[in-house]
């Protein structure tokens, strides 16, 4: 009975609002702490706050500033709201009279107009500075140049000065602050809109047909950085994944040399090469030294130098290669690779041949 009485007399609105307020605050603190400490060392979580490249770093620093200001505004207004909801609730004793009917106050209106305007000016200036720093950054002579062409649903990467054509997995050298070697990408599209987003390296920039764009990354740690297409481009937008390998200068040069060599010609697998050259494969795919000069699909000259196939949708293993060629829809339903309908013998020979393309 005492409990029921106490419950009935309790000031529920005040209690609830206080509990909610505390809960929100605790949740917010936990969230912030979790986010800041969550990123594991191995870059498996592509967090925008785990930046490892100059443009991503600039964005992160700016974001701290913005989060600070918006956080402060939230605290002030939330406190006001909580206070008002508790202090000015109708009490039973005083319910009959209406409160003072206040219509407004010019001074207060001015105050809460001018202060936000000042905040806007400060935010705008901070922002404009970073926009300019990133978008109008000068290109040093040692920069690596890559042309990225977006396709439905894979990435074509060309290094025009190095004579390299590859797909889906980008290799770039690590950049040293003393001697910067950033990578500047020219962004084109062969079909619809795409977007290049590797959060730890830079903000995203779109690839739009008939509208060349550019972006740059300046990574200062080696490692593998993950990303994916960030502009809806059709059925398999979700599996247009990106892998950016930031290599030491030695590793990068070794990789370049490997990519510059023509396709390995292993006479043991001539049968498989024959399958490639006499089926529709060569309409879409190129392998140097063969008749295949198709550009609709990825260049396969150094297929085995990549860890994944189908733009990251599957690991690059013989089994997956076989499955991909036989029935692409089982890995990436809706991709534009047709099922090749090869006999088992042809398929095995082809896969063995492809496995030689280091």
């Amino acid at each position, binding site marked *: 009975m005492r409990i029921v009485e106490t419950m009935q007399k309790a000031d529920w609105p005040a209690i609830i609002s206080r509990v909610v307020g505390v809960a929100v605050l605790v949740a917010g603190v936990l969230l912030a702490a979790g*986010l800041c400490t*969550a990123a594991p060392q191995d870059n498996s*979580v*592509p967090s*925008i706050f785990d930046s490892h490249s100059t443009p991503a770093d600039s*964005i992160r620093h*700016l974001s701290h500033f*913005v989060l600070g200001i918006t956080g402060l*505004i*939230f605290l002030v*207004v*939330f406190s*006001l*709201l909580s206070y*008002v909801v508790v202090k*000015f*609730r*109708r009490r039973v004793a005083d319910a009959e009279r*209406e*409160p003072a*009917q*206040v*219509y*407004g*106050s010019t001074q207060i*209106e001015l105050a*809460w107009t001018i202060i*936000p305007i000042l905040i*806007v000016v400060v*935010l*705008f200036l*901070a*922002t404009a500075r970073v*926009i300019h720093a*990133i*978008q109008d950054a000068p290109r040093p002579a040692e920069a690596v140049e890559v042309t990225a062409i977006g396709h*439905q649903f894979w990435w074509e990467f060309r290094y025009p000065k190095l004579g390299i054509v590859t797909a889906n997995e980008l290799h770039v050298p690590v950049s040293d602050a003393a001697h910067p070697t950033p990578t500047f990408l020219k962004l084109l599209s062969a*079909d*619809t809109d795409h977007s290049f*987003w590797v*959060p730890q390296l830079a*903000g*995203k920039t*779109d690839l*739009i*047909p*008939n*509208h060349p*764009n*550019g972006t740059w990354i300046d990574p200062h740690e080696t490692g593998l950085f*993950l990303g994916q*297409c*960030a*502009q809806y*481009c*059709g*059925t398999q937008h*979700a599996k247009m994944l990106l892998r950016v390998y930031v290599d030491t200068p030695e590793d990068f040069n070794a990789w370049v040399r490997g990519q510059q060599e023509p396709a390995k010609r292993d006479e043991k697998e001539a049968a498989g090469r024959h399958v490639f050259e006499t089926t529709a494969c060569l309409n879409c795919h190129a392998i140097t030294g063969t008749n295949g000069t198709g550009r609709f699909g990825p260049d396969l000259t150094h297929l085995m130098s990549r860890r994944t196939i189908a733009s990251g949708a599957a690991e690059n293993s013989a089994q997956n290669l076989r499955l991909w060629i036989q029935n692409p829809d089982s890995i990436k*339903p*809706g991709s534009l690779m047709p099922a090749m309908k090869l006999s088992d013998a042809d398929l095995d020979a082809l896969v063995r041949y492809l496995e030689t393309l280091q």
Partner: protein
Amino acid sequence: MSSDVLAIQNAEAASRPWVETLHEWVTTVDHKRLGILYILYALVFLIIGGIEATIIRIQLMRPHNDFVSPQVFNRMFTMHGTTMIFFVAMPILFGFANYLVPLMIGARDMAFPRLNAFGFWLTALGGFLLYFSFVGGSGLYGAGSAPDVGWFAYAPLTSRAFSVGHSADYWTIALLVSGFGSISTAINIIATILCMRCPGMKLSRMPLLAWLNLVMAGMVILAVSPLTAAQIMLSIDRYLGGHFFDTQAGGSATLWMHFFWIFGHPEVYVLIIPAFAFASEIIPVFSRKPIFGYPVMVAATICIGFIGLSVWAHHMFTIGMNSYANSFFVFTTMAIAVPTGIKIFNWLGTMWGGKIQFKTPMIFCIGFLLQFLIAGLTGVMMSVAPFDWQLGNSYFVVAHFHYVIVGGILFCLFGAFYYWFPKITGRLLNETLGKLHFWLFAIGFHLTFDSMHIPGLLGMPRRIYTYEPGRGWEIWNLIETIGVFVQGIATLIFVANLVLSYFNGPKAGNDPWDAWTLEWSVSSPPPVYNFASIPTVASRRPLWDLKHPEDPDSHYE
């Protein structure tokens, strides 16, 4: 006495065959009935859109899920967005405007009753056409070809080359048709407000709901038209061999983006401003004070209307505009935060010094205040273009706009339902169920949409039917899905409340909330002619003046 008239009407209604009643409703030009039709239509599509959202969330519950195929998923998010914006939010807000504006300005109906009906039926046809796409037409992937191009249908994905069959056409034509309906209704609202106010109701004495719907209607006229134009251009491309967005012929994909967002951004203000209108009517009544700073509220809304026409390319920060263009849109987007913030402060100022009653309409508006504050701040974060280069097109954006639309607009709409349902039906909604609805929905909302910001920060783009494991996205996606079911249950409770109270709710009387605007001076529901004699008003709160003849507002205005 109008109650006698009503009694006679009801007695006649009881003995009429249902075909006649149906015919009356189908051919009605009465703003109140059309308002109800709009609202019921929108509620049906709210359920359908909610089912589409549930399908999306079940698919995304865990990585590499196979609840639906990518083709179906892509149709789901396209239809969910298109449905919710064009066939839920716009009709329901037009419905409330239709019902309330004439009553609040002392008029008998809208300026053009037949145009009103025309507008509603065009909107209805548009919705039907969009959903017919599930069974009609032909597509590359077999039976059913609902559009799968996203609700903003970027070119050249919508060209014949990349969207075979007719799915993109269903999107285009359905919205074209309902767009004409929206423009018709907007014209009607403006003409009504400018030409049909009762004597004494100068523009400066109009309820804020009327002012805000006036601004909203103006924005519809200026913003929906560019979408109409762009859709005509898209159809010319698809069927007459035009090249507006044909990049192979030198056309521009970004031109579509500009045209779409010149519509798309003002559109979201079209949606939020009527929600502001509900809050501006409910908060004063339940704080027992007039709105704080009426002239400033009007001025701020007009500012939002104008500035809102200049911010569109903040949806396009990643498309490669030069740094000057980007900076311009950063500035205008930040600028619009100022009048919006002023409104939040004015609502707080209204509550300050008041005697707040925590009835259901009010607690929904308090939820709106908190959530709209957060949504506005995440918007400010994205107005910082470099930050948007990370946040844009990710789940952070999805979280932001759902925070505004669900946390802001829908909460105000729920408040509006609880506030005006008694006027429309004559019966009060159940308070206990209302509070249960609020708390359950709030919990579900925060579970889903608070969590949703995080995958965005961790690199998850939007519009993906599945995702890779090990990126830290799984737990948040799971929590989001759980929240959807909580919101679903809360919505069912709401619908149950609507149905039960319609038949069994306590009688409301004319003025259950002790409010001050003209709609509370007539019976609940109002007679078909609204007012037996057109009222004359001398202040912004005519009923306050009547109830407090010793201290009327007219002495202070």
